């Protein structure tokens, strides 16, 4: 049956013709979270406290209480996260349209540039160059910035110096352009935020947050395994927790990748 798309999809999953790539870091207490100046409010890190483990607290069962900020580990940013998206409809994770949770991805490999310069900034010309090779970014696509930053851990991952974090990200122009000219559904990174470490000094400050959320688009950060994705063609499944009026949430991000035929 030619129109049995999901049947074919199930077959492709079973045969391995479609691979499922996990783009998620393990949610653990040691994973760095965004750091604000200490007099401001802070995101709670991920914490797990045992309720019972087949012991006096519960003889046959193991379970834990969790606590964490909405923006912990591999996580999703909803438009309401930023002031620019505060008045939009459907701007929180609980009202996020389910159809937006599945979308194609364009992966721009800047791993070499990021390796050479922690403050590497993605520009419009980088994206145009990518389009010359892989074709135009289709509307409602995720743009994922591959930097291989996810291979770092601890201090090297956060890369905090006396003048703040030094991690790669997009510049202000490219964010405005991606949202206005390419109508992307969202932007994803391997670093702690969708913005560069020094983005507080950009104009506007934190342009990824500013433009994405101001237009009702989304952010994904702390992604991993982007090096397992093709430049184009992967489908992203990103379904945040349905938290009432939530500004974001940790989530499992999956990519569906069609294996290239080798025959």
């Amino acid at each position: 049956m030619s129109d049995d798309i999901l049947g074919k999809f199930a077959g492709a999953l079973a045969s391995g013709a479609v691979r499922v790539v996990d783009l998620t870091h393990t949610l653990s207490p040691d994973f760095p979270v965004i750091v604000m100046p200490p007099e401001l409010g802070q995101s709670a890190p991920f914490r797990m406290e045992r309720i019972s483990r087949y012991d006096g607290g519960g003889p046959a069962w193991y379970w834990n209480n969790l606590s964490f900020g909405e923006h912990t580990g591999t996580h999703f940013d909803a438009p309401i996260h930023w002031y620019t998206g505060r008045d939009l409809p459907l701007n929180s994770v609980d009202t996020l349209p389910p159809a937006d949770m599945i979308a194609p991805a364009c992966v721009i490999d800047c791993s070499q540039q990021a390796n050479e310069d922690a403050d590497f900034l993605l520009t419009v010309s980088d994206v145009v160059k990518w389009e010359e090779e892989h074709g135009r970014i289709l509307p409602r696509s995720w743009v994922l910035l591959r930097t291989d930053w996810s291979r770092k851990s601890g201090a090297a991952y956060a890369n905090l110096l006396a003048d703040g974090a030094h991690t790669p990200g997009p510049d202000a122009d490219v964010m405005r352009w991606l949202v206005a000219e390419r109508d992307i559904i969202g932007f994803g990174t391997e670093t702690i935020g969708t913005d560069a470490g020094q983005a507080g000094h950009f104009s506007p400050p934190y342009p990824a947050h500013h433009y994405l959320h101001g237009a009702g688009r989304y952010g994904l950060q702390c992604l991993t395994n982007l090096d397992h994705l093709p430049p184009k063609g992967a489908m992203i499944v990103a379904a945040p927790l349905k938290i009432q009026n939530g500004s974001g949430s940790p989530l499992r991000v999956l990519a569906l990748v069609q294996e290239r035929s080798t025959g």
Partner: protein
Amino acid sequence: MTEPLARPKRKNPLARTTQPLLPPQARSRKAHGFTLAAATGRFMLQCCGECGRYTYPAREACPNCLSSDLTFQDAPTGGALLSETRIEVTSDPYFREHMPWRTGMVQLDCGPVAVVHLHGDCGGPGSRLKLSLQLDRAGQAVFFAKPVSEVPHMEDDPQWREMTADPKHRRILITDGRGPLALPLAQALKKAGAARIFVGVADRWKPFDQQAPLEAIEGVELVDLDLTSERSVQDLAMDIGAKVEILINTADHVRPAHLFDAGAANAAREAMDHTVMGLMRLAQAFGPVMRSRGADGATGAVAWVNVLSVHGLSNAPQFGVHSATHAACLSLSQWLRTELRPGGIRVLNAFAGPLDTEWFQMVPPPKVAPKALADAVLDGLKRGLEDIYVGDVAKDIEARLFDNPKAVEREAGQ
């Protein structure tokens, strides 16, 4: 002269660890006047308000004039040895482990005669002595006599070491390497002969200024420790729990917040998590193993220090959350003290006023320099104290609370 305490040999893993025992504990309610004095390093006896004579043991009425106006007052610390007894054999389980033990009858300068524990360097009958009230391993007050002048290595006297928590040759855990206290404490402990100093550091991925100077101190080892994470605290205890003989909890979390601010609950919860729950997690992870090692040789587990804000005793509205968390820490600390007592582990609360650090930048002097607080903690350990008040603000609040707690509360809110 006291034989200097040798660095302990590594333990024989085939030998059973000696279990802690405690000296006799029975005391009357009146006699806890001595406990109060010993806990704070004072020498106090009952003194009659009518005839002015000091009396001992603790009584309900003056044996001289029968007045009931007997209050504990500071007394002169001198005395003369009348007789000495070196006990070689006893049926008391605790003292059996510590034979021989020197005791003596002392004519106190303030009048009464008392039986005291005698430092090994004290001369024979007739020699002059300096008296103090000490807390023994059971946390009860006893008289202790030392020679009037200092003698080399006198702090290594085995009887004195039972009354104190000297860091010499001991292994210490400082819980918050990022705090302002860690560096001066580590320096002071090193100077005092600590064998090893573990310094807990949370979020190793965040750089901090004291890292290099801390690591430069020989014997200091930075270890992962995040008091807000049960797993982190448990993991560290699994690694080094049986090596910590003195735990110094320097955790603090000062964030200004007004009670009616929208974010005040978050600030309070964060502060509670760092301090109160942090102390709880530490107690659960390190308490049992420390308690079991209270008699583990000459350098067994001996003390737990909590560095607290004196505003835990009476709320300072400018630092309301901070005050509230430290009040809870104090309560928890008292609980911990009871739980650790069977191991003979002392719990020392160091109450300090505002520190001379960034979070108290707006507070006018006098403030406590972190080094002064570190030195006071060391002094408290070496003298076996239980409650110390560091700095002018803390001392003032202590004195005024003793006098009129309501006045302290009202004035702090004005």
